């Protein structure tokens, strides 16, 4: 039985927590994270190293290996064609964390693919790229003929801007940018609904990075897939993402549309990040950055994990963990058509009970002299 597509939602993550068990104590790498991703959306996930952004993405794709354990949460995937069966729930959603190995194999790459940070390590150095692309195609589609797979491989390379005569090249014969393009081509092979990109351009130069992002935006317009784009470079996300979530010490501290985040950063950490990179234009401010350094996840500060570095911290921040709550949309823009979350922030400054005075006029003062 096929039911109609009810919403525009593609992926729904509910209260996800991931722990790493170690002899020196459990590390809560991801802590109670919830968000939804719309079809065709570019969802940016920004944070420093150790903020849990990659762990979260790998958990969605069920790529985590022990000692990482998903302790809590649900990942619901809403396929385009809803076949209600044993794997799906009544509303047509697939519970990704409950898939058995065979179902998982079908789910991965056809529905969700992933581009890893280091293309040099993700590609097999002893196989040419033709073999690696056709391998994906034929593994998921055993009936595909060799010529069919070959022509699809050529087509995929063309999509990412690589000439077809490079098809029989080995990874070491390609430049860093081209390797990353091959990775994107492989991710696109089965027309997935969703691609997770884990710092796809971090190791690349700015010009190459710009080329690849340009290609990505073009492909997204043509094929309408969703992207989870993970990076530590907030300035990059502000250019490409629709919705941005900022992670700090395993939690999402702020989530909102690109414009809203850029104009009205609500969380002091977001504001600090925005004032951490010098700009190319305008007057040269003296920037102070964020004091201190990111916490050790084995001993996260109590209350809000950011409070030791926060200029606005008050008593409640040291004891109560703030939860991610929607904020009054004063000055905020309406969320994009087709639903989606409004701006949410996890900060006691916006809690009328704990901070009756209301949030400060501007968070900027703490970061700009």
């Amino acid at each position, binding site marked *: 039985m096929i039911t109609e597509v009810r919403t525009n939602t593609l992926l729904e993550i509910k209260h996800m927590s991931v722990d790493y068990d170690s002899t020196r104590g459990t590390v809560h790498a991801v802590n109670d994270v919830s968000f939804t991703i719309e079809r065709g959306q570019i969802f940016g996930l920004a944070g420093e*190293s150790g903020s849990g952004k990659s762990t979260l993405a790998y958990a969605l794709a069920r790529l985590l290996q022990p000692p990482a354990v998903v302790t809590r949460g649900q990942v619901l995937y809403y396929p385009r064609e809803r076949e209600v069966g044993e794997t799906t729930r009544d509303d047509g959603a697939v519970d990704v964390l409950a898939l058995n190995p065979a179902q998982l194999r079908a789910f991965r790459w056809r529905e969700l693919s992933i581009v890893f940070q280091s293309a040099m390590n993700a590609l097999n150095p002893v196989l040419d790229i033709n073999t690696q692309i056709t391998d994906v195609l034929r593994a998921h589609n055993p009936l595909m003929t060799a010529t069919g797979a070959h022509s699809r491989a050529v087509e995929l390379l063309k999509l990412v801007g690589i000439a077809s005569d490079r098809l029989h090249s080995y990874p070491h014969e390609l430049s860093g940018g081209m390797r990353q393009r091959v990775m994107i081509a492989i991710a696109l092979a089965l027309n997935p609904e969703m691609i997770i990109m884990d710092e796809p351009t971090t190791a690349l130069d*700015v010009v190459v*990075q710009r080329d690849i992002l340009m290609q990505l935006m073009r492909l997204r*317009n043509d094929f309408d897939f969703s992207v989870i784009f993970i990076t530590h470079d907030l300035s990059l996300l502000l250019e490409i993402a629709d919705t941005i979530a900022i992670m700090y010490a395993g939690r999402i501290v702020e989530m909102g549309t*690109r414009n809203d985040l850029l104009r009205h950063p609500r969380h002091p950490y977001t504001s600090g990040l925005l004032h951490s*990179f*010098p700009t*190319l*234009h305008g007057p040269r401010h003296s920037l102070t950055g*964020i004091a201190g350094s990111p916490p050790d996840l084995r001993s996260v500060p109590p209350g809000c994990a950011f409070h030791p570095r926060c200029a606005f911290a008050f008593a409640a921040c040291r004891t109560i963990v703030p939860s991610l709550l929607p904020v009054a949309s004063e000055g905020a823009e309406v969320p994009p058509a087709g639903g989606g979350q409004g701006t949410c922030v996890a900060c006691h400054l916006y809690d009328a009970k704990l901070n009756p005075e209301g949030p400060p006029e501007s968070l900027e003062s703490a970061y700009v002299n």
Partner: protein
Amino acid sequence: MSTNTATSTNEEPVLNEEPILEAVHLRKEFPLHSLKLFRPSQAVHAVEDASLALRPGRATALVGESGSGKTTVARLLARLYTPTSGTIRYGQEMVKARGEVTLRAYRRHVQIVFQDPFSSLNSVHTVRYHLSRPLRIHGYAHNTAEETQLIMSLLERVNLTPAEQFMQKFPHQLSGGQRQRVAIARALAARPSVLLADEPVSMLDVSIRLDMLNLLLRLKEEENMALLFITHDLASARYFAEETLVMYAGQMVEGGPSDEVIQRPKHPYTQLLLSAAPDPDRFGSTVLQGDRKESSRVQSIVTVGGSGEPPSLINPPGGCRFHPRCPYAMPVCRQQFPPRTELGGGRWVNCYLYGAENKTDLTATTHANGRPSKEVE
């Protein structure tokens, strides 16, 4: 580098002070060893004709992509590599090619901070050991008490407090930012007058980068050091340095006061770099104008031309090495590297577009964000 003091309207006099470290026409080739006997020997032409001058109390940024030779320049200046040709002058003296004593004396004045704080510290030694070596070698500390006192003050200067605790730590007990602070303290221990910082923040987390840059700026002011700041990020070059030099594939293509170079780039490569740099302002401004809507974001990425990648440095293109990617390339660009054209105010560019015989000014037809427009072709 020419020392004409060209007067500029709003910049403080750039070239008045005598350079403390000057490199003239540096060239570095790394020979490739081939097993084939009768094949002509090949080399990586990493740096081709780099000239620069560092002045006390001023920061100079060297900007370029990976493989542009910027790290090689720093290593040549630190005398970790011997230049194939060209001269380095410290103060009034030529820096001699060899001799351990001369080099040690030179390194008292010129110190380097490396990019990767995870591999530039020795993991089997404590912070104290790392800092005590330069103090002993350069004769600043003669006994343990003196050594302790100097190390304490060094650690405090780089904001590693409480210093007593940090002294006993091993590198693996420190975060990336703390390690880089130790590396900076180690460089400062020799009391250098020139500090070469090779991408000092690129391996660090975003939120602590600025802290590190501000630390370096403060030290520069306090010690009146000359600072060479190597980076691939134009925005931090603008924030950090008074002067910016742009390198491409081993050649220096443009230089001058940072604001000038970044706000009004002349060389097509600088324009390309600038248009590719992530810049939320660009997006923000198009929204504020309100004339382009949702597509502006895609547009800002799509319309940037000049794609391609830097050339191989084993067989680099002749003439200007940027010509295969340059939208304005002329026949002469393929034959000969353009001479330096002085543009006044300390600005110079190595590009035939600005040569005496060709006075086209690209900036007249360049968008605010440094993207060359199509009309020029």
